[in-house]
């Protein structure tokens, strides 16, 4: 079974996104900020990461830059998931190493569509 790490400081978002991704037949784990997510990735790299932008301790951009520099960190498919819809800012997330981008709020169909775009389902 593929693995997905959901990184978001909102417990509700982690729960909702986690359920949707479990229905896509992923084993889901959670982290509430970038630093905690990085620690989990150092233990075991997931196949996919759904990543919030604004979080305490370490934000999504700093996390993905650190991830992509880490050994094996180029492997996970990272789907940013944030409310930011400015094309410049979305471009910044892509340049930092994101593979896809979900604009919040989302539904199951959007997550499925974006995971399909990057070959996760």
């Amino acid at each position, binding site marked *: 079974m593929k693995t997905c790490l959901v990184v978001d400081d909102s417990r509700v978002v982690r729960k909702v996104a986690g359920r949707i991704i479990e229905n896509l037949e992923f084993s889901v784990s959670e982290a509430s900020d970038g630093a905690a997510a990085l620690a989990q990735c150092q233990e075991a790299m997931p196949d996919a990461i759904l990543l919030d932008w604004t979080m305490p301790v370490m934000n999504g951009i700093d996390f993905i830059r650190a991830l992509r520099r880490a050994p094996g960190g180029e492997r996970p498919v990272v789907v940013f998931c944030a409310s930011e*819809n*400015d*094309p410049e800012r*979305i*471009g910044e997330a*892509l340049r930092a190493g994101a593979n*896809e*981008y*979900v*604009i919040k*709020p*989302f*539904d199951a*169909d*959007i997550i499925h*569509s*974006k995971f399909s*775009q990057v070959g996760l389902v």
Partner: protein
Amino acid sequence: MQFHRFPAMDSDTFSELADLTLDRSGQVLHPGKLALYDARLMPLLRCEGFSSAAELAGCIRERGHEALGSETVGRLVNGGGRFFSDPDTLSHCVDEFLTARAIRQKGGKLRIWCAGAGHGQEAYSLAILLGENEALKGLSIDLLATDMSSEAVERIRAGTYSHFEIQKGLSVNRMLAHFRPLADRSWQALGPLRNRVAVRVHNLLDSAEGLGRFDLIICRRVISTMAPVGQMRALENLSDRLLPGGLLVTGEHETISCLPEVFETDAEHRNLHARAGETEGAAAAA
């Protein structure tokens, strides 16, 4: 902001609107989908100031309101859509069929018709693929999207999609390349993409003679929702507008029972139907 809640459609109103829909579009409404039809009519009720679907049906019946009847049917049968629905078929149409046809006819003009285009996601998906195809660059390509609903046609013309619609089927790179966000968080197709798609109101039950003839006609998830008589009429109209050697594309899992003999269905891809005959220049035949 407070939204007025409309009463659920009653069975008499459903029957009346189902008859109207069959008559105007050839399509069949299902009594098990009342909530869906209520949701589809809600914006029209709000916009036109009706308090219920029954009042709307009464106005069409008593005043013989032709335009309102057509608009009501258009809203009832239009289920929206998504970008790059069945991407393999779209890629086949552009990268194989149209490219081979362009080579065979040594350039010239290619004409494509998205019939029953709904809110236009398929037409814009095709326009994006056409722009990405190097072999077709520089060719004159007409892309026409039609729908029986003037509201749908206006939406295609505006090229505006909600926050949810824009994220279904469209990759972030294509979204950024071809759309821009508006203040209400919807996204609008950029001018160059919008300019590639011509739009027009057209009912598939009517003769399409005025539209010219086409190399490729895409009509998905419409024909199979029609009663047999409507299917035959629509297919005759479509086949009449397809150039010899042209391709009719129906929905991936759509069963078309009364395809005219002039078509030969692909053995592997059952939704691709080639029109018999020699290829000829679209521009000359249009």
